[in-house]
């Protein structure tokens, strides 16, 4: 060993490393060669990694996006988030909101050749009900008491007590091939098999996920052969991909690049309202926030348009109810227009003429910081000094949900957002305003407690009568909005960009990317 010349050693090490790298080149060179031979593919760049392809165990938007290209549910959602029948031809809900009957479309096959029928639906529903390893999405399904197959293509599902979000749950519970569930369920998170217009090809962790056209799809139509999804977290890189054409669609599109991209002939920029509500929840059990006049004063102190301009680069709509305008049963309220005099007046009535000091919490995200600073400036106008306390997400979550009782809570104000399916008003209200939903049992971080509102929510959840629900939710919105448990800020608008040579791809109001008719023009 001693005799070996050090230069030879170094040289050897270098050759080794080049050889190693050479190996990688060979592998990648092949895949590149393959690419020239195949039909064109559409690349979609999104901002985050996909978490799982198991539709019964996923909550994040990006995973849902990819899944919905491959998998379909009994019900689904249209562009605006309204519930529509998909695999079910039609559906009905009993008067007492306990029985759901689905008549299924016939002649539909899964990607592995299995038939879609009532039996397949039963297998899926049972998996969601019983598989202990599923951590999400069992909600609603754990209320099911019986599944009755009424015919090859008709099925009735009964739940024990009314659950307002049940139809939405049937929409998000997508159907997987019963063969996969029975024989290879551990493959579901990696490579699901469904009935959708595209089938799974490969998923290279952190790099890309590819799907391919399913030629036996039950709805005929022209579609592109292949779609590849890539997680590209850096905004600038995503924009560069759209400009070079490496990506055909990017979502989200960073607002600061909007002007530049709008001037680009090869790129089309689109904007849609979302179901993401931004607000500051105010702890209504803590002094001085327990006085409704103080909370209303806060609302009068904030200029919503300025908020949207400063924090959301001008993309957003004012939050003019307790839910976003796309949510079902939305009713517009009388907005708290900025009125400093009135706000000061209210504070004076409440006995805080000289203002006070308050604390606002939020995560460490730069947009959140901007938002909190904005609130700080606005409330300063009415003499309230706001101290900003930003915490890393996990720590923040501990601080908020660690409080076992309202008295334990140290929270004064929380700058945060909420989003629910547009069709799911239960989830857009109950976890936020029902007295059963105080942390740690829910996200009612305003500790809003109004017996009447509780009662209305329970009533709306236990009826299948839509006109009655509409009436109740109108009352709820009006009452809560007046009580001001939040500073109502805005509803985000979603921006996405596409190359002008593609069609049939759009972003839904919930943030999912619909590619059902994706193609080149």
């Amino acid at each position, binding site marked *: *060993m*001693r005799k070996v010349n*050090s*230069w030879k*050693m170094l040289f050897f090490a*270098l050759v080794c*490393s*080049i050889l*190693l*790298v050479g190996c*990688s*080149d060979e592998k*990648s*060179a092949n*895949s*590149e060669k393959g690419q020239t031979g195949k039909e064109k593919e559409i690349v979609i*760049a999104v901002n985050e*990694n996909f*978490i*799982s392809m198991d539709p019964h*165990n996923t*909550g994040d938007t990006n995973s849902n996006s990819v899944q919905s290209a491959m998998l379909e549910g009994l019900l689904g959602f249209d562009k605006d988030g309204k519930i529509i029948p998909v695999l079910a031809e039609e559906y009905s809900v009993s008067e007492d909101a306990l029985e759901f009957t689905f008549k299924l479309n016939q002649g539909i096959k899964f990607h592995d050749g299995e038939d879609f029928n009532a039996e397949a639906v039963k297998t899926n529903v049972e998996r969601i009900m019983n598989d*202990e*390893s599923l*951590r*999400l999405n069992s*909600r609603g399904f754990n209320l099911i008491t019986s599944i009755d197959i009424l015919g090859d293509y008709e099925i009735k599902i009964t739940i024990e007590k009314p659950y307002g979000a049940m139809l939405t749950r049937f929409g998000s519970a997508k159907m997987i091939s019963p063969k996969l569930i029975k024989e290879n369920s551990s493959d579901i*998170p*990696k490579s699901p098999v469904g009935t959708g217009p595209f089938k799974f090809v490969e998923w*290279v*962790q*952190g*790099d*890309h996920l590819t799907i391919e056209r399913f030629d036996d799809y039950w709805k005929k139509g022209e579609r592109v052969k292949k779609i590849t999804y*890539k997680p*590209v*977290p*850096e905004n*600038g*890189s995503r924009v*560069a*991909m759209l*400009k*070079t054409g*490496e990506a055909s669609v990017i979502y989200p599109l960073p607002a600061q690049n909007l002007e530049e991209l709008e001037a680009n002939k090869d790129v089309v920029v689109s904007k849609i309202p979302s179901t993401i509500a931004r607000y500051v929840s105010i702890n209504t059990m803590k002094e001085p926030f327990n006085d409704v006049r103080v909370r209303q004063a806060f609302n009068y102190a904030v200029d919503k348009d300025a908020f949207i301009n400063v924090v959301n680069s001008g993309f957003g709509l004012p939050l003019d109810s307790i839910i976003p305008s796309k949510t079902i049963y939305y009713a517009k309220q009388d907005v708290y227009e900025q009125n400093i005099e009135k706000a000061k007046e209210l504070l004076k009535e409440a006995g805080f003429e000289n203002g006070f000091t308050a604390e606002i919490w939020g995560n460490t995200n730069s947009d959140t910081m901007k938002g909190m600073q904005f609130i700080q400036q606005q409330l300063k106008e009415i003499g309230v000094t706001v101290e900003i306390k930003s915490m*890393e*997400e*996990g*720590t923040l*979550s*501990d*601080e908020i*949900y660690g409080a076992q009782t309202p008295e334990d809570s140290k929270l004064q104000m929380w700058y945060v957002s909420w989003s*629910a399916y547009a069709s799911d008003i239960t989830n857009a209200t109950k*976890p936020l305003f029902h007295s059963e*939903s105080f942390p*740690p*049992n*829910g*996200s009612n971080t305003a500790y809003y407690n109004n017996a009447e509102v509780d009662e209305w929510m329970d009533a709306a959840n236990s009826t299948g009568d839509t006109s009655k629900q509409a009436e109740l939710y109108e009352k709820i919105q009006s009452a809560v909005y007046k009580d001001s448990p939040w500073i109502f800020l805005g509803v985000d608008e979603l921006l996405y960009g596409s190359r002008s040579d593609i069609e049939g791809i759009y972003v839904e109001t919930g943030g999912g990317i619909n590619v059902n008719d994706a193609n080149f023009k």
Partner: protein
Amino acid sequence: MFQYILKRIIEMIPLLLVISILSFLFIHMIPGDPARLVAGKDATLEDVNRVSIELGLDQPIWKQYISFMGNLFQGDLGTSLKTGLPVSTMFADRFMPSVYLTLLSMGWAVVIGLIIGTLSAVFKNKWPDHLGMVTAVSGISLPGFWLGLILIQIFSVQLGWFPTGGSEGWKSYVLPSITLGAGIMSMLARFTRSSLLETLKADFIRTGRAKGLKESSVLTKHALRNSLIPVVTIAGLQFGFLLGGSVVVETVFSFPGMGRLLIDSIAFRDYPVIQSALLLFSVEFILVNLIVDILYSTLNPKIQYES
């Protein structure tokens, strides 16, 4: 020498055990409940508790540690709390790209760094020295994300030579490895220069010259070889760091590496992934250190290791 290497490798085992215990404790001490993060914002307490039991998080911490280590010895890194996928699957697609990127970045950084450093030392205070040191200072000072985005703008958007990111094909490795290597190249160039200048003043160099050795032979065979020890130390350290992935470069170039996986997992309190990644990085670091130690004795035969 072989015995020495074997001994070092055996010594790794207790070291790794200590590392595993410490990292396990630290990870679990950070505030934040993975069960709540997994269950989502709209979860009820009942949901959170159910998830907690399902994930085994309700067990005492020493039980969780023993079950983690037990699985580890059977070659099972566990299942990610966040994705429900085996940790090994999540590592598989990211580990090799990280290794290739590290080798490429280090490869060019070492070669160019040594050349610039040597030239700067030989032509001290002449224009090659000034040019070399300006290059080196720029390399250290340019922030990675800035350099990366500028490279994308020039070579991907304007010229279209390389893709903006990904890990498919050798082309996608070019820009990230330039970005990653720039700082290291500069550091190595500066270390080589100062170390070589120091060595060139030594007595044995004067002796060499006095006995009539050619200047090139003095430089390469005697001076450079003797001045490489600090350079190898730095290169080894950097190599270890790079294997752990670089969040900035992986983010800018959407590169599927280990760095971002670790950061994402920490944000999500994905214990099995964090734990396994930390162990993997420790093993890598220890191995790189071993290689550096062996290189020492090759460079300077006076450094001997008892076996």
